[in-house]
């Protein structure tokens, strides 16, 4: 259905969901670390996590895909 994207550049600090898991709209799914802050990234729509596209520790850029939801 869609991808959860990084709202800003940073490092993936924690991935909070697993593939196959159900997520709600507005749920925190990833926490980035950027500018010394923990940045929660939320799912913009409800669905099932199809795949995780970023590993903890990865450097990511703004708009990079983090999680695919279907």
């Amino acid at each position, binding site marked *: 259905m869609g991808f959860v994207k990084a*709202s*800003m*550049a940073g490092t993936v600090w924690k991935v909070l969901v697993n593939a196959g898991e159900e997520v709600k709209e507005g749920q925190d799914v990833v926490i980035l670390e*950027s*500018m*010394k*802050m*923990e*940045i*929660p990234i939320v799912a913009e729509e409800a669905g099932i996590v199809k795949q995780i596209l970023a590993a903890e520790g990865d450097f990511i*850029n*703004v708009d990079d895909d983090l999680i695919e939801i279907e």
Partner: protein
Amino acid sequence: MEQNKHQLFVESALKGGHKKYHEKNASQGKLFVRERLNLLFDEGLQAEDGLFANILAGDLPADGVVTGIGKINGRTVCVMANDSTVKAGSWGSRTVEKIIRIQETAEKLGAPLLYLVDSAGARITDQLEMFPGRRGAGRIFYNQIKLSGRVPQICLLFGPSAAGGAYIPAFCDIVVMVEGNASMYLGSPRMAEMVIGEKVDLETMGGAKMHCSTSGCGDVLAKTEQEAIEYARKYLAYFPDNFKQKPAIAEPKIPAAFEKTLQEIIPENQNVSFNMYDLINRIIDEDSFCEVKKLFAAEIITGLARINGQSVGIIANQPRVKGGVLFADSADKAAKFISLCDAFHIPLLFLADVPGFMIGSQVEKMGIIRHGAKMIYAMSEATVPKITVIVRKAYGAGLYAMAGPAFEPDVCIALTGAQIAVMGPEAAVNAVYANKIAELPPDEQGAFIVEKRNEFREDIDIYRLASELIIDEVIEANDLRAVLEKRFEVYKSKEVKFADRKHGVSPV
């Protein structure tokens, strides 16, 4: 006979365009222009001008625009409202003249002016009469700019505002767009395909959602026309009729009740996010928040609210979104909001929890320094009462942009856990001791870093800053509402002039 002619003219002018256009509008959830005005005003239009404009043409009732004066919550307000059942609300020479005249009326009366826009733009066949001249369409924008900061100007966008017409919303204080129907664009998708070969649909090109969340040209996204009109009526209550007056005081209310106190919701760890709306709702009069640009640059929150009945403009960092870091768009959003409040004597409340401005090549290319400068400029120039609260942290230029001590806030208050510094402890230790840390044996590095971070924290201890008179007051979070009530009350009589000059050179 004459009486019949008069009645026929009145009836035809009042009923708008052909039935099929009324039906088409209704199928899109669009109300007829006169129904919109009935919803907007307490008791409909009190005075209408130019009802007979272009009446002899036969098919151009009121020349496609209704102009007049009505009352909103008892206050006199001027309005221009396109009638999209008449040639798609397009502008002929009399349409333009009517709009110009109601602008002149708003100036003379010192009354707010609302633009209810639903227009396909210029009638190209009439261009010589309505486009280039002294009282052509350009004068509408000139007048808007002249009225800017004199009276509130509000745009409700119910349909398209195309090409030149797209500048009406651009020069208003605030633009409310109805989702699915409202759009703004300079060139239509058809024109884009012809001229630059781009294939794009109208929603993507200039739809309400896009403008309210991405471009920032729209301020408020409404689901229906009724919702848009309701917002305008609510918004106006925070403003005076014109810049010579002050906003009216509403009936004071206590903040909404919550299970958890402010102290309990603010995390001690500076790096952990929390939801700034939870703080705002605990310090403002219940149900008094009227947010502006909610969907755009959500890392900063801007909105009107009431504290003890008094109208205030809130600028707050939102740690939940992008860590509350300032970006080009957030600075731009704050700059316009600050300037809006200052123009109409609405005191400002800055709630700072900001790690600084974003860094990196991407934001530098976007001109983050230039956009940040706009915010700092607007905030400095603002002469209304300014209260700054350091909620948790204010690092680097973030402290400056959020009305830090150097920028003449009437008071800079810190909550007990607040930190003010050039940067956070982790970054600072790294910046100062990077070489030293690298020289140390690996097993000693950790302890060294912890020691230096603790030294840094002691150095920026909030009581040390208060002792040095950098901070004017340190308070417990739970006392914030009471302190703000008293402070805004005592600053009511503030009157200052920023600088004597023609005008500054704003870094736009």
